[in-house]
Each structure stands twice: as C-alpha cells, then as structure tokens.
C-alpha cells in the first residue's frame, strides 16, 4: 500500500520538477467556435466547477463504457455493481439520483427511478463529457442537486472527414469493436458511430467472505452490449442551424453472483434505450432562439427464473420539448428565458397499468459581465409545475472574477429540488413494496466557493491549481422504509448534510516532439443523513471521505504512455460495516503511426495494475489485473 502511494505521488510530482528547466513559451490560445458550441452550460454555469476529462484519459477509455472513464474522473464517486454491471455516479456527497444526466441538453434520467446506467454508454459516442459539480445545475431542473453530467458530440463542422475502426481483445473474454465515419462539408455534416462489446467476466478472485479466502471463479457476470449513434448538423439558412441525433443501445447483463452467495445467480438485466434529439437554433442580431425536442424510449427487463412471473418489464416513454431565447445586451450581458414541457409515461409490471406525469417549467437567467471581461455573475430562476402542483421556486446565483492576473475566484449558491420518481409514487402494493402518492419533492440548498490559479502558462510548462469548498443541505429526502409485515414504502423522511473540499493540480509541458501532462485531484467529502431528530454522525453509505485521482500521460513522437491511479477511502455499506480503502491503477501504452495513408494505433491497456482485491459495492467481486489490446485505424 505504501509503495503505491509513493508511485502515485511520484507520477505527478517528479516530471513536474524535471521539466521546470525548459524555457517558457506562450500558450497557444484556443478559441471555441462560439456560435456552434455555446450552450447554457457555457454561458450560465458561472462560478461552478466544470470538469472535463483529459483527452488522454478519454483515449485510454475510448473502447470502453462511460463508467470506466468516470471512475478516473476527478471528484466523481462511482457505484458499480461488479464488472460491467449497473453503474451510477454521485458527486459531492449526494445520492446517485442527485446528479442529472443530460444528452444534448435533454435529461435522460429514468423517470421511474432517477437512474442512468453509465455501463451501457460507450465513451466513443461523446466527444464532450463534462461534469458540473454542485447545485449550480439547478437551472437544468429536477434532479440536478449535487451535479450534472453533460454528454454531447462536438462541432461536426470543425471535425475532419474520416472513417475509423477499432478492435480490442482482452482478458476474461473481453471483445470490443468500434467504428464510424464523419462526412459532409461546411453546410451539412454527419457522423455515424457504432460500438459493440462482449465479455464473459469469468475471472478468478479471492473470496474474502469465506473462511480461508478461497480462490473462486466468478459466475453469471457476462455482458453483451451494442449501440449506434447518428448525428447531423445542418445550416438550413445563413443563421439557422439544425442538429439531430439518434442514439440506440442495448445492454444485456447477467447479474453477477455475490461473493456471499453459494449458488450461482441466474438473474439478468436487459436494457434497450432509444433516444432522439433535434434542435433548431437561429442566430438573430440581438439574440439567439433555440427550440429543442427530445424523445426517449427505455425498456428494462429483469429476468429471474425463480419468480412466478419470471420477467419484470419496465418501460418509459418521455417527450421533452424546450424553447428558449437569449437576448444579448451589449457584449458582456445577456438574459435568457425559456419554457420546458416534459411528458413522462411509465408502464411496468410494478404498476398494474401506466403512470403518466406532465411537467411544465419556466426558467430565466441573467448574466452580467464585469468590465474588461474580468468576470461575470449569473442569476438563474426555475419554477416547475407537475401533476402534483407547483414545485418550489429554485434559483442559482453564481459569480467568477479575475482577482489578479491568472487568479480567479468563483462561487455559487443555489436552491435545488428533485421530484419523486414514478416508482416512489406509483409502485403498486405487491406484498413487498408500495408506492406513496403523497410524497413531496426533495429540496435543499448548496453553495461553494473556490479559486483557480494559473501558476504558469507557457507551452513548455503550464500549471494551475484549483480548490473549492462546498456545502449542501437537503430536506425531505425520500427513503423506502419497511412498514408492518416488512412491506416497504417511501417517505420524505431524511435530511442530508454534506460539506467538503476539492483540490487539484494540473500541469502540461510540451518540448520538441514530447508532451507531458498530469493531474492530481483530491476530494474530501463529509456526508451524513439523519432522520427526524435523530442525528447520526456516520458518513453516508458508499460515500468515501477521501478520494484521490492522479493521471499522467507522456508522448514522444509516435509513442505514448498514460496512467491513471485512484485511491478510494473507506466506505460504509451499512450502519457499522465498511469496505476497505483501495488503490488501483490502469496503464495504457501505444504506438501511433501513419502508414499507407492510414493512421494506425496499436495499444495495450493494463487494468488493476497492482492486482488489488477490492470491492466498489459490497460483495461484488472486481476483476484482478487484466489486459486489453486494441488496434485502431483512421482513414
């Protein structure tokens, strides 16, 4: 354990000192194509911490699912049920359904249970993955209590036309294939991407739940998944842009046998998701009009041959319609106002029919830019009405300011809410559980304050330091509790309090044909739940107090090497039992070359570098050290 810490620190710190001697150069200025990519996130998430995983990190996980990428992303706490299993995230000590997930600006959280399965989503579908920490995302609506994960493609007009394909093979029957193309010109551009993965996950692990710690083979953990994504960007008129996206994926997962179960599990989960988004954006002289439409159809089937009815079929249909207008006042100020209508319909074996909810929300933001572009402040408001009536008016007030040259302060305060999920409200009485139609929304506030200091900004060496302190409180948290005869029912009964600190160092250095980058990020999170007057000072389950991530990459000509290490502290999994802290790391090395007019890239990934025996969720064994080889080509 000790050695791993040394390694982790050295990986980031040592090269830092070694490259300090190179002479400084000006950092090349990168400008976004503002017209196309500018979004409400960019304009109105002022004062918020928005993390974008490093390109090298994305490359390392390119042939995997978002859950494997997010595990290495700073400040994200990932809860994954075993290898390739259901995976959800939490941020800043919040619960998993307190992080909204938006694809092209459309919330894709399941209205049934608030969940999103990151294991089903291929990294290669999204050129932009952004993690917004804290409650500033309240503008994006219900569920954005402790953060928002934004997923989108990038600007197709600035991307080169290409065809790419990739094949991977790895341990425990892992096979991955990925391919796609981008075509088009300056008026119309289009992209297609496909991804397929298969794994047996029949790895051998040390069963620490049994006396003698026997070596056992994992059973019922196989996975098959497939997905396609198609996107178009089209300038229909000089100032009018239409974007469309269609995304389909299927995820067929055998639910891993627990380490504590003596007979193989034979249950499985099969997800089918179809999502479509379309937007029309018109750039006027004084403002921008945006109309957005989204359709989501999800089907989740759990199979348990033991049950009388061996399949549990859960279906969701959502239609999201949103219009907003941004009015520019001078070059620094703007106001934005809009309306969102969301129709949700769920039909499930658990409902004895269907449950329908209509939601209507109004939102408005005002942005005031300080003189000379030194900073800005934003006030956002959102009010939602659902079938249950008007929800609390929520707001977010944020600001950032360049106090000194390259030293920026930022802060945010917000009020947040989350509507009950349809399962909470409508689950029929089935002898074991029963929904509660009288549930109200969860609501609370959150605030943060931070600094960002660009210590150095040269091409040969750039470094910045960031630190943010945060705190939040949530009331009326929904919790399922057993009634008489062990029947479970949800109640607005908990109060959550969280506070903590996020600190990080980033650096990059380029010199001749070599480039070195690194990031070290530490999160301290204190999160407690209490019921009524009883205040229990215990850390919330599955919320580590300490998490440290480090990643570093080095490229020299055609060779590259990247590593990611994470330390996750002790976590409670019930009122008194804990999972041990662990350190695990991934290493990727590769060689990229252009030959015969084709860019070829051969890489090797080693996961769980130190063969750590660890658990993310109690009694779901995680794979030992494993390998993956990938060959990809781009024409």
């Amino acid at each position, binding site marked *: 354990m000790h050695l791993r810490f040394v390694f982790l620190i050295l990986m980031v710190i040592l090269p830092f000192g070694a490259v300090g001697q190179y002479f400084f150069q000006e950092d090349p200025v990168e400008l976004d194509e503002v017209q196309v990519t500018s979004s409400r996130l960019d304009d109105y998430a002022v004062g918020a911490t928005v993390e974008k995983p490093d390109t090298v990190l994305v490359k390392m996980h390119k042939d995997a699912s978002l859950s494997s990428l997010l595990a290495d992303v700073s400040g994200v706490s990932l809860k994954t049920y075993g290898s390739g299993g259901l995976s959800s995230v939490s941020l800043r000590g919040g619960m998993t359904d307190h992080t909204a997930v938006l694809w092209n600006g459309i919330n894709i959280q399941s209205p049934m249970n608030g969940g999103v399965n990151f294991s089903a989503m291929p990294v290669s579908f999204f050129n932009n993955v952004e993690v917004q920490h804290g409650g500033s995302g309240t503008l994006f609506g219900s569920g954005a209590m402790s953060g928002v994960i934004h997923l989108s493609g990038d600007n197709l007009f600035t991307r080169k036309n290409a065809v790419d394909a990739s094949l991977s093979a790895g341990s425990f029957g892992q096979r991955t294939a990925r391919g796609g193309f981008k075509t088009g010109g300056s008026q119309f551009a289009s992209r297609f991407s496909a991804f397929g993965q298969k794994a047996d996950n029949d790895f051998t692990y040390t069963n620490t739940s049994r006396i003698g710690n026997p070596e056992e083979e994992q059973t019922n953990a196989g996975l098959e998944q497939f997905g396609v994504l198609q996107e178009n960007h089209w300038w229909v008129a000089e100032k009018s842009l239409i974007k469309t996206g269609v995304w389909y994926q299927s995820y067929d997962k055998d639910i891993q046998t627990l380490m504590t179960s003596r007979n193989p599990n034979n249950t499985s989960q099969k997800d089918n998701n179809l999502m479509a988004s379309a937007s029309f954006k018109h750039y006027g002289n004084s403002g921008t009009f945006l109309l957005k439409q989204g359709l989501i159809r999800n089907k989740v089937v759990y199979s348990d041959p033991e049950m009388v009815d061996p399949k549990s079929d859960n279906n969701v249909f959502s239609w999201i319609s949103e219009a907003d207008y941004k009015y520019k006042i001078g070059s620094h100020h703007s106001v934005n106002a809009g309306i969102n209508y969301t129709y949700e319909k769920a039909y499930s074996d658990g409902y004895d029919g269907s449950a329908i909810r209509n939601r209507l929300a109004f939102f408005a933001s005002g942005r005031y830019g300080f003189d000379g572009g030194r900073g800005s402040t934003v006030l956002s408001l959102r009010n939602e009405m659902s079938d249950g009536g008007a929800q609390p008016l929520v707001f977010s007030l944020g600001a950032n300011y360049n106090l000194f040259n390259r030293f920026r302060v930022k802060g945010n305060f917000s009020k947040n809410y989350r509507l009950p999920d349809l399962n909470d409200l409508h689950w029929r009485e089935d002898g074991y559980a029963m929904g509660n*139609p009288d549930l109200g929304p969860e609501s609370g506030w959150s605030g943060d304050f931070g600094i960002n200091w660009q210590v150095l900004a040269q091409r040969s060496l750039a470094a910045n330091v960031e630190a943010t302190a945060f705190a939040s409180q949530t009331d009326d948290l929904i919790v399922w509790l057993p009634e008489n005869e062990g029947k479970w029912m949800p109640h607005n009964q908990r109060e959550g309090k969280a506070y903590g600190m996020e600190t990080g160092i980033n650096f990059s250095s380029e010199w001749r044909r070599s480039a070195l980058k690194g990031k070290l990020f530490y999160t301290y999170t204190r999160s407690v739940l209490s019921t009524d007057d009883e205040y229990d000072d215990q850390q919330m389950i599955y919320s580590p107090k300490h998490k440290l991530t480090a990643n570093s990459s080095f490229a020299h000509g055609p060779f590259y090497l990247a590593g990611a290490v994470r330390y996750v502290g002790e976590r409670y999994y*019930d009122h008194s039992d804990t999972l041990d802290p662990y350190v695990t790391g991934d290493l990727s090395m590769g060689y990229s070359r252009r030959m015969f007019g084709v860019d070829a890239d051969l890489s090797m990934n080693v996961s769980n570098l130190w063969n750590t025996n660890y658990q993310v969720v109690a009694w779901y064994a995680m794979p030992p050290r494993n390998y993956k080889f990938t060959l990809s080509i781009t024409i």
Partner: protein
Amino acid sequence: MMKKRNMIFPGFMGMTMKWLTAVILIFAVVSCESDDDTQPRDPGEYADGVFVLNEGSMGNANASVSFIPAAGDTVQGNLYKNTNDDKVVGDVLMDMVSVDTLSFLVLNNSQSLMVVNNKNFEHVAEISEGISNPRYAAAHDDMIYVSQWGNGGEILVVDSKQLEVVNSIEVDAGPEGLAIVNDELWVANSGGYGPNNTVSVIDLNQETVKETLEVNDGPKNMVEDANGDVWVVCAGYTEYDPETYEVVSSTPAALHKFDPASYEATETFSPDEGVHGKPGKIALSADKQSIYFNGEGIWKMDVDAAELPSETFVNVSPYGMSVDPDNGDVYFGIAPNFEEAGYVEVYDANGNEVATYEENIGIGPNNFYFTDKK
C-alpha cells in the same frame, strides 16, 4: 418458536479433512458426556439465554447473531464474525435450528445453511448443494427440514450427520413456516411472490405429501397448542389500483384451527382488518394455552376462546416475535429500517414490559432461538 433439541452426534461423511478434525473433537466431547451421566454436559458459552437472529439488509451480507444471556449480562453481538476470523455469516438470516451441538443457520440470499458449533459459534460447514431461496427450518430426529421457494416450492431434507441435502419434497409455491405435529411436517405455502392458499402435510417416514389442506390466502406459519390443535395464520392477499390506490381485490386474513387427526378446520376466525390489522406472525405461549398474533399491535387469544380478542396485548409492530418456552416472556424484534440496527423488547405473559435490548443487536432482528437450560 418451538424448542428444538435432539441428541444426535454429527457425522463426517462427505466432509473435508479440515472439518473432519473438528467433528472428531466434538464427537469425543459429546461421547464422554453421554457415557457418564454424572458429568455435566459442557454447555459452552451460550448455555442459558436467547439467540437473536438479525436478518441484515439484502445483498449486504450483514446478517448477524446476537446472544442475550438469561442472567441479563451484556448482550453479545456478531457471534459468528467475532469467532471466525472476522468473516461474515452471510446474507439474509431467516432461521436457526439445532441438533445437539450443531446449529444450522438458514441464509436466504447466501443460498446456504451455515453450520456452526453452537457452544462457541465456530464454523463447521456450509451446505449449499440443492439450496435455492431457503426460508425456515425445523428439526426432527436427526433430520433438518428446510422450506425453500426455489424450484416452485420445496421442502429439503438435510441429514445433520452427513451435512448434506438428501431429499427434496415438492410442495406449493412459497413455503414458509413449518411445524412438526405428530411426526408429520406441516408446511404453510404462502404463495411466495403471488397468491396461494394451501398447507401441505408431509409424512416424514415416507417423505411424501400426505395431505394438502385448503386455507385462506397467504398462510405464513402455524403452532400446535396444548389441546393438540394446529393454528394456521393466513395474511390474505390484496391488490390495489395503481392510480386510485383503491383495493381491486382483497382476500381476507384468517386464523384457522385444525384438528390434526381429521385434517379438518374445526374453527376459522376472521380478524377484522380495521380492528386487528393483518396478521402474519403467530407464537404460542409457554403453557400452550394461548396464541399471540400480530397486526395492528399484538393480540393474545386463549386457545379455547370462542371469538377473537377485542383488546391488544401490547402495541408494538415487530419484525420478529417469539415466546420463551420456559418463562413465557414474549420477545419482539423491532426493525425501524434496514440501514440501522434494530432492538429487542421483552414483555411478560401479562403484557408488562420486562426489558429492552439495544446494544449489540443487528439489522432486522426477525427471529429468536431459546437455548436449552438442562
């Protein structure tokens, strides 16, 4: 819960060398005791008191066993973990029966029976072959009978010497509570995940279902009273409309009194849901002259009474309920939720609170096992 006790030595067929050694030791100790009646039998650390079975929260394998000594000393928690190298006992502990020095713990989601030495709670073996969704157990002679929901509902016959499943008997869906009545095994087929309305009576010599008795929906458990009658508690079955939450269909709960000679229900009591609530648990007083059942509070009823009681015995909503067969105290396991530890409340046979135990009780106390005091 019934007292279960048999003087049968554990055997060692089909066991590994490691356990062979342990069993030979046990065998030697027990043999000495049996050979010489003047020597007191070594009762071990848990001679006089009650084991509390804490179910734990499903999937977390945080079930545990606590021990409340009769002397009222400090409650001991986590018996298995503390004696077995900090290992967990398993996932969702439902029941425990003993045959001589061995205790068998029914672990629903571990899909196993954990066998421990009940003098010190040291691990002896774990039986898993043939086990699928086990619920409750009863011991008779040297056999253990386990109800399980797997394979459409079965009773497993487990040889406590060989430590393996030797037979399975098909019953109806969702078998739960078990009772040994005149060398026959009565099985409450609750329906499991759906409705069902039968009790199977198994001839233990033939290991076949001899009678299938019709009862109200959702039979959960039964007890045999001082008159030899068998009381079956049925919870009924209710479906609700998802939009309006109005009852779509509902079948009533019942307390049936059966004559085990004729297999006929001699009386059926219909609890008034508005008064008594929905019963699902039943326990027998120490003198076997009264039964306790739950619902809106706990009700006590004389076995010869002509109608249901009109006043509650005590007002608690227990997750587990058992009676100390020696002094008649009623033990309630209280589970406020499945994230925190529960507690145990004890009342005497007149409904006076005797004790509350909070220290070292685990999550979801659902069952009790009273040790022999001989």
